[in-house]
């Protein structure tokens, strides 16, 4: 299984401000009623984007200036709450290629990497600089350089940390671990044999 080497991403950005944006906000539980992830992108941030009657609420994702953005920017502790992979799936299926935030919740971070969706941590000040740049010039091209752990935009360069294990997996095209895990099956059997509770 050959996976893309994700060393760098280029695209326009959209800033969704706020800390502790949880997975229920990213994709409300009622949209988890499904047996595939298909179509989830349409419901990204549904309850903060739409009124009950289906009309738009003011939200950056509804702002036509940011249509087509592929880099999602946000605050601290992004993706807290549920382990639902529906959240990163909705983000990815909406068209995002990367998430940049001050920090991420643990399970969400791992779920993203496994989908080849890089998560990079940047300082509040730097995210504010990028947000200011895209606010005045939505067409600003943003480059998230995963390998170099930096973001380049409008002639500026800021730091963007990607965890060592995630960075390695992304830039080397092994972000989906299934192939490697399967290779380890003989060693799995040996380890399992040590445990009475795993006696077959």
């Amino acid at each position: 299984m050959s996976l893309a080497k994700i060393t760098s991403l280029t695209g326009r950005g959209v800033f969704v401000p706020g800390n502790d944006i949880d997975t229920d906000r990213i994709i409300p539980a009622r949209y988890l009623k499904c047996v595939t992830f298909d179509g989830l992108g349409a419901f990204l941030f549904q309850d903060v984007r739409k009124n009950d009657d289906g009309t738009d609420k003011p939200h950056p994702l509804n702002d036509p200036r940011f249509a087509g953005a592929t880099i999602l920017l946000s605050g601290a502790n992004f993706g807290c709450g549920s382990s639902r992979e529906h959240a990163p799936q909705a983000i990815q299926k909406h068209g995002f290629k990367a998430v940049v935030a001050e920090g991420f919740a643990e399970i969400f971070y791992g779920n993203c990497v496994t989908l080849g969706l890089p998560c990079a941590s940047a300082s509040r000040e730097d995210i504010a600089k990028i947000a200011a740049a895209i606010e005045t010039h939505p067409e600003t091209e943003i480059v998230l350089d995963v390998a170099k752990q930096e973001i380049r935009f409008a002639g500026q360069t800021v730091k963007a940390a990607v965890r060592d294990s995630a960075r390695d997996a992304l830039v080397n095209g092994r972000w989906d671990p299934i192939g490697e895990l399967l290779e380890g099956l003989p060693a799995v059997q040996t380890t399992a044999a040590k445990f009475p509770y795993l006696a077959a």
Partner: protein
Amino acid sequence: MTDPKSLFQKVWDAHTVRTLANGQTQLLIGTHLIHEVTSPQAFGMMRDLGLKVLRPDRTFATVDHIVPTDQFAEPFRDPVAQEMMDELRKNCARFGITFFDRASGKQGIVHIVGPEQGITQPGTTIACGDSHTSTHGAFGAIAFGIGTTQIRDVLATQTMALGQLKVRRITVNGALRPGVYAKDVILHLIRTLGVNGGTGFAYEYGGEVFDRMTMEERMTVCNMSIEGGARAGYVNPDETTFAYLKGRPYAPKGAAWDAAVARWRATASDPGCHYDDVVTIAAADIAPTVTWGINPGQGVAITERIPDPATASTVDEKASVEEALAYMKLTPGAAIKGTKINVAFLGSCTNGRLGDFQEVARYLPGHRVAPGVKAIAVPGSQIVALQCQQLGLDQIFRDAGFEWREAGCSMCLAMNPDKLVGDQLCASSSNRNFKGRQGSPTGRTLLMSPVMVAAAAVTGAVADAREVFGVKN
């Protein structure tokens, strides 16, 4: 003498298969629990890749999130819920996975079923596609909530790729005051350490308060570890753990039992082991706690006031208090006590166990749910429901004006028909107060202990259960 190790370190080391190229560990997962919401897509991925379930004998399924609590017969009124049910049945049958279906009498919330069956055991690793898998840490297991792609990984290889966590020891010493419960302990801890304070950590809970807790109480605390950002939380196994497990269907029997207990005892953290961080809390400082905001860290003691953004110490805190109060429609600086409620929900993987209903039932006789309040009691499993019925507790709840329902996750996340309507305010024994969590995009949730939920239900407003029920201080 080897270096002293924490339980986490021992279990991690023992279950390490090898180091992967990116530096993560291929970790053996001894027990895999699955349910209808996060598994169907994983089985789909298995089909696409032509993979088989490696250890169907170590994979256990139940159905909990989408089941109606007022309808046993199928088809369900919601065709998508029925489709999810059918999909799980089909996948379990195809791969030979034990399914605690409703007809078995053993169905329930996955984090209640595992312990109840004795599947959850000390010194083991557990994974489930649900963030509240941390619940199982109450037994001294290391239990991880995982995403769907990882469910695929565990189904196919009984392992997953994971980076090692740090360990924070949280000691709660002294005695809890009357009317203060395990739920208050964890709400207090999250309030103190923050909703992201546990990022990168497993929490080890210990001290006199945990030593005295029942297994159910330990589960309540471990359950909400994730709400504090900790991927896992655990309590070292002790006599309470062993007594709970003895005789359960999947617990070892006879000589194997004695050998297992000896092994389990040895998995507990060694005295003098290294912790990456240590936090000590005095039990006497913990009060009945109620959340006022939109994350589980936004809580106050029942005697305190709702925060005022004007007095916030940082810009961030001010913004988060403002956002929360705007959503919650609560008044800054007002007492939380007396806040009118519309709905009372008793149940969930946090507080849907026998002990929770027993404790509330001690106080309910002589009280009635206040006019205009919808109160529902949802046992966490069919076995909990049966035990309650055998003790006559269901009748106590009905007599008090609660609707007594069938087992499931219910209004904790409202994937079934149990939902808030409009901006209803719900006193809830569940674990999350996120915006829209209980099924209405504008619905509002106040988290609290089951006894506090009951106090709110019978008075129609957030109340101090110690006053309402005459708990002696």
